């Protein structure tokens, strides 16, 4: 059982770090959203590892369901901002967002 927990934790952290790499290495806003989604997959794996380790899958399922809802709302809001930003600036470059500073 511990081997599977270690495997889930290892891949969870690795996928989280790949998501962070996507966030820091691209300027296209849609790529940044893909990075956030990738990080969310890693967090889901780490949550699952915690549930497997404690042998309490029911509690972890509720947390994962809540997390999926948070992830979806976040994605919807971010994609809305991308569409509006493209209409205003004609570009998806995240550096243009600095013009929004008041």
């Amino acid at each position, binding site marked *: 059982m*511990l081997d*599977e927990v*270690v495997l*889930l934790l*290892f*891949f969870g*952290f*690795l*996928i989280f*770090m*790949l*998501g962070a*790499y996507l966030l820091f*290495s*691209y*300027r*296209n806003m*849609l*790529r940044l*959203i*893909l990075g956030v*989604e*990738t990080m*969310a*997959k890693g967090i*889901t*794996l780490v949550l*699952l590892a915690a*549930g*497997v*380790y*404690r*042998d309490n*899958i*029911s*509690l*972890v*399922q*509720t947390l*994962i*369901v*809540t997390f*999926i*809802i*948070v*992830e*979806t*709302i976040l*994605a*919807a*809001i971010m*994609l*809305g901002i*991308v*569409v509006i930003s*493209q209409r205003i600036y*004609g*570009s*998806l*470059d995240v550096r243009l967002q600095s013009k929004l500073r008041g």
Partner: protein
Amino acid sequence: MLTGIFLTLMLVFILLICFFRDLLYAAVSLAIGSIILSIILFRYAAHTAAVFELSVCAGLITVLFVSTVSLTKNSDQKVEARLPRYFAPFFLLLFAGLSFLLVNWLTGHMAPATLTFDPPVGFRETFWGTRTTDLLGQISLILAGVFGILAIFRETREGRKHA
């Protein structure tokens, strides 16, 4: 063994996001990663979470993403990356080393699972009984999302005249 194969497949599809130039392919790659994650959840008897992952993450978010890509196809979608694409495998090795160290440290400091043993109860009892307050948070989040989208796409009277 089977879990390891699924996790490796998931990692491959997520790594492909870094390599695909076309955002549609990248979105499909993420969706396949979500499908594999839902299989992993299903294998650990987290059935409800697996269904949510499959329908919401692999389905709804992919549809939203593809719609956004098609809505913004007139723009310069190929904004350059800060780092060249061929750096990704080197970073993968670096991250694998970091994850290995982190997991090693965690396994040395993990409390024994038997210390906080809770009797296993079903998802329904946990969701509606123990975590009832989560529902309030989820409803608030959904409302925040709806109002957020309405605020983003709100059209003023002047805007309508110009349109």
